[in-house]
């Protein structure tokens, strides 16, 4: 584990359920103060990894540290220091908003009632309303309030905008970013909606079938991963392209997506593509997860 300034460190984590490997030798470091996007399709193992980080599941092998605490041996201390918001978080519908806040506050020695009150007003929540009567967007904002009011050093958000309409999603992200900016809080943001992660994340990791396929700063990904478009008549030996992620053939053109554009240029030598296309995070993710590595057959 190299980076001493990491808020999350994961080393050799493995977990299987009923003989099916859900996490396979996962290694990850999340630098302190960063907003870290954790990407993966549904069923990739994101929630399992998060449950291990929270000390709710025991891994089969490996270790992790959360803000300096091992959640496997000190799960309660780890959860006290972490703010956590789950996907589609369901809370006690029979409680009123203020009752739920007061109830959750008892579990956290560092609970800041003033901050909770401030967030309650900023998130436009009625304290006397029953939790069960809140809209999905309001429920998400309340869950965010509960995750932030004990001033955690590290916040884990597990697909927090899942199931929200675009307006509610925008409101939640605005409230979240509004609070997290300049606070120095480390955010571990798991999502499969990449367009919402892209503008706010410093780094991302792509998890697929229990393995980390790539972990890098977003800018580095955008800079290095390109789609190169060639005429089909140009002879390209795709088996010799380094870091090939995807090959597509259409309209007499061949588009290859590569992990390291500089290395690919060197490998191609005198052959020049028609154009180089910049990719957004969505397209990069798709290339890693569903990319075709073999050249399409003619006809």
């Amino acid at each position, binding site marked *: 584990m190299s980076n001493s300034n990491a808020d999350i460190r994961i080393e050799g984590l493995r977990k299987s*359920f009923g003989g099916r490997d859900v996490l396979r030798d996962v290694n990850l470091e999340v630098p302190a103060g960063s907003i870290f996007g954790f990407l993966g399709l549904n069923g990739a193992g994101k929630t399992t990894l998060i*449950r291990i980080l*929270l000390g*709710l*599941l*025991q891994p089969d092998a490996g270790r992790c540290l959360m803000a300096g605490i091992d959640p496997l041996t000190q*799960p*309660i*201390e780890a*959860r*006290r220091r972490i703010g*956590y918001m*789950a996907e*589609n*978080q*369901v*809370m*006690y519908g*029979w409680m009123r908003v203020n009752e739920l806040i007061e*109830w*959750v506050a*008892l*579990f*956290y*020695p560092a609970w800041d009632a003033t901050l909770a009150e401030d967030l309650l007003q900023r998130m436009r929540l009625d304290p006397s309303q029953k939790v069960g009567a809140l809209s999905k967007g309001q429920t998400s904002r309340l869950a965010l309030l509960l995750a932030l009011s004990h001033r955690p050093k590290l916040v884990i958000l597990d697909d927090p905008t899942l199931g929200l309409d675009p307006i509610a999603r925008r409101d939640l992200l605005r409230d979240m970013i509004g609070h997290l900016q300049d606070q120095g809080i480390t955010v571990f943001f798991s999502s499969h909606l990449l367009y919402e992660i892209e503008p706010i994340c410093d780094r991302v990791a792509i998890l697929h079938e229990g393995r980390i396929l790539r972990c890098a700063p977003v800018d580095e990904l955008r800079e290095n991963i390109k789609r190169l478009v060639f005429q089909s008549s140009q002879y390209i030996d795709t088996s010799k392209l380094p870091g090939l992620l995807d090959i597509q053939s259409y309209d007499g053109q061949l588009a290859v997506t590569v992990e390291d554009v500089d290395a690919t240029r060197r490998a191609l030598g005198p052959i020049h593509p028609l154009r180089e296309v910049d990719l957004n995070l969505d397209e990069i993710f798709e290339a890693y997860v569903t990319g075709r590595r073999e050249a399409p057959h003619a006809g």
Partner: protein
Amino acid sequence: MPANGQKIFRALLRKEWQEQRWRFFLGATVLSGLLAGLLRAQIIPNGEAALLIYGPVGLVMTIFLAMGSVASERADHTWEFLTVQPVSRARLLGTKWAMGLALLAGIIAIATTAGMVAMASRGFRRLPEFEYEEIRYRSNFFHLLTGAHPIQTIGVFALVATISLACWYTPLFFLLTRAKHEFTAALGGIFLTIALLVWLIQLSAGASTDFAGTVSFYHAALSCSGLLNPLSPAVLGFSENFAPFLPVLLLAQVGLWIVLPVWLVGRNSGRLIQKWMQT
């Protein structure tokens, strides 16, 4: 328990009461109504009436209380929210277990009080005891009660019932924490209780002999194993051999079925429970 720990325990208990109180009111109404009705009608002796109500109806109440707490939270998906709070799984389960146990004892206490009031409303008439009553109760624990005041009779039956049902409630509660839905939990509770009763029946007359009337090792072992059955005091109270040891048996059952499971859960709040619950 530190001051903050007490606050957390009280907060969890308050939530449990809010969520479980309907079970308490329903259970208390059903058990009280049946017991008071039967005792006031006096169509069977007090002891028989108490056994009939505390036994089958009490077991249904026990399943009802043991199955509900965790399974309903899992079905409502609030279980995920509860378990991510910085509270140990042992404390969460311990609070739910304690609340269910308190409700069970409370239901029996209220039903017993209602039964006593019902008997009082008839002026504590000496029951028209059946002839065989004298013979059956001649040399067992409960025969001490045949000449006793009806209040004493019902009180002792209620005490034995509370301890025995609590002894079954505790392992049943921890076994059913794995159920992901109340319906599954109810089915599990019913099957486990039937298995318990089948086992208990081996303690009844004739269990230690086979059909030819000879004692076999198998039958003797099966019969003796019945001592471990949490409901065995209800049967052994009527046995000449075991009746004198009933108070000792009750204490042993409390140790085996309440203290030991709670101690085990409290000791190992991490791996054992999480492995069992796999959440």
